[in-house]
């Protein structure tokens, strides 16, 4: 690729290095996270796409075998980049963490045998989140010699209802661990998550509940001191054209000119469809205005009629990275 074709440095448009993608369930946050990882890898960069909820959403999206707790090549990005993927598992992360700091070996296996890890992450869910975010932090800040391992890390995070608690690891663990390595670990994670290196993006649809949850989540994130990035409207249709309602007579003439049936059922049916469509579009426009009031950069991703396949992901990736 010639130097002149090099896409704008992602720093220009997506300045953070860790992109946390949240959104109400059903808004397509996994697809958006994947598209962002793909878009940020374009032009020879390397990104890591991470999931933490054990849903194997990335594997389903890309039609691969379930992801292990291991950074794996996921796909090549346009222009020579690479997206890698990782499914973080709290238990594995804990063992890795213990091994790194305490050289456990056999004792780690003993922990697992006693069910200690299941127990620990069950009884103290805050601990689970520290482990998950701790792994994300490690990947984000890792470097091989002079070069950072990843140009960007994209996290397919828990949904809006849980995102504040998930990211606010220090508050959750401070209740339990007053001193010691868990406390230090959570403070390190917290510092990264609250730094300009991180941006939390909220995915929504132009529907009432997802928009309401977006507004609530942004208020919560702001109050907790996490840098909010963009509001990403998924499956958006363009704003309503300033059209007017078509009359039955007009429609009848049009249908006749097109050689289509002009019976009463067809005319009233089509009129009703057009009216419903108009109602829906007007609601979408008012929701769009509500989102604009948040004062955050807004990105709209087109509705993909055929669902999100590989080509669709590239369309979304291009739309995301193009957006300023």
């Amino acid at each position, binding site marked *: 690729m010639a130097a002149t074709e090099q896409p704008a440095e992602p720093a220009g448009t997506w300045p953070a290095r860790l992109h946390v993608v949240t959104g*109400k369930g059903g808004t397509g946050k996994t697809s958006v996270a994947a598209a962002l990882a793909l878009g940020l890898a374009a032009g020879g960069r390397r990104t890591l796409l991470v999931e933490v909820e054990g849903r194997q959403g990335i594997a389903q999206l890309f039609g691969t075998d379930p992801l292990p707790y291991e950074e794996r090549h996921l796909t090549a990005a346009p222009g020579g980049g690479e997206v890698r993927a990782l499914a973080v598992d709290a238990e594995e992360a804990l063992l890795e963490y213990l091994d790194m700091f305490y050289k456990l070996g056999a004792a780690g296996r003993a922990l697992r045998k006693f069910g200690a890890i299941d*127990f620990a992450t069950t*009884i103290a869910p805050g601990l689970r989140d520290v482990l998950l975010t701790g792994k994300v932090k490690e990947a984000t800040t890792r470097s091989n010699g002079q070069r950072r391992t990843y140009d960007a890390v994209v996290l397919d995070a828990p949904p809006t209802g849980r995102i504040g608690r998930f990211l606010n690891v220090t508050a959750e663990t401070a209740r339990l661990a007053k001193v010691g390595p*868990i406390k230090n670990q959570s403070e390190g994670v917290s510092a990264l998550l609250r730094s300009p290196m991180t941006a939390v993006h909220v995915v929504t649809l132009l529907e009432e509940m997802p928009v309401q949850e977006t507004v609530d989540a942004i208020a919560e994130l702001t109050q907790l001191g996490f840098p909010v990035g963009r509001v990403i409207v998924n499956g958006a249709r363009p704003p309503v054209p300033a059209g*007017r309602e078509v009359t039955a007579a007009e429609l009848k003439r*049009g249908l006749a000119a097109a050689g289509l049936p002009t019976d009463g059922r067809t005319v009233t049916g089509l009129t009703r469809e057009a009216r419903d*469509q108009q109602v829906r579009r007007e609601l979408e426009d008012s929701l769009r205005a509500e989102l604009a009031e948040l004062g955050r950069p807004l990105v709209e991703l087109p509705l993909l009629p055929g669902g999100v396949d590989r080509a669709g992901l590239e369309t979304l990736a291009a739309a995301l990275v193009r957006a300023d």
Partner: protein
Amino acid sequence: MPSEDAAPTLDVDQILADPGVRIVVCCGAGGVGKTTTAAALALRAAERHGRRTVVLTIDPARRLAQSLGLTELDNTPRQVKGIDVEASGGELHAMMLDMKRTFDDVVLQHTDPAKAAEIFANPFYQAMSSTFAGTQEYMAMEKLGQLHARGEWDLIVVDTPPSRSALDFLDAPARLSRFLDGRMLRLLLAPARTGGRSMFSFVTAGFGMFSKVVQKVIGAQLLTDLSGFVAALDSMFGGFRQRAEQTYRILQARETAFLLVAAPEPDAVREAAYFAGRLREERMPLAGLVLNRVHRPAVPGLSGADSLAAAERLAQVGGHEGTVEVLRAHAALAQQAVREQGVAARFTEAFPTVPAVSVTAQPADVHDVDGLRTIGAAIGGR
């Protein structure tokens, strides 16, 4: 509609009217209109079938909650006013689940006040009662068990939590049992049972290594809190598990009807299929599938392709801009309907005997009783 004649039609009115049905559980992925469906069915049971109904919602949208008169999360059923029950004599009550308070109530029920106070003050209890993965599911089950035990209701309609996976709702009791039976918990309990000596005084070889690690990693304070919590919890084990198992059995009984709620999107349908498989495995009574937000063209005879072709022809001729717009909109709708049928067929192919009903997408969101009534009528098929 070729893909629809595969499955029998779900008759929700038959379920809602059946005095033998005491519980309806709505489950499915997040974002498919589960809460709205539960509320609409409960309203219909009260207004049309004269049943004294309570709907247990988990996390309703603010405006939907307001429409039911739920202004606060107070964990008690409130009667919904201003509904049309004069003819039927039914009643509708609604409540929102308060997870923490339900957990507190369970603790109070199973232990004396002094011990309860000790438990409430323990940081592990505070963490677990508000954030334990599965607490919400377990507490929803607990609340369902309570409402059922009071025997005041003809029908309880339950909305399930917006879980990571719809399966969490079914798995919560088993997970709790596993947790309570866990070897780890037994080990931590040993000192309490042997007279309060250090938990590490009875060490085995493997456990010695383990205890060293635990002390190093989490520190002494945490351990003290933890054994305190576990010891306090010990007195309630039996009660906890018994209740979870009781509710589980109620869910398997004939008086319960599970309704899967989905939208014609790949993720939601996949989730519904998983859930249908699980219900079958657990021998729980699956009554049918409610497929929300289905798009249906009002002029089914005009295909998307024909409509689009006609729009292009007219656009070239000129002078029919309004009709061109209408035809393009119809084409998009018709194509969407075809896609949705393909997605829905994945469920009916896997579960051909499960009755299903499609509910047409509403142009605007529902947040009042009239809107719920309209949805209820659409689910009821008239």
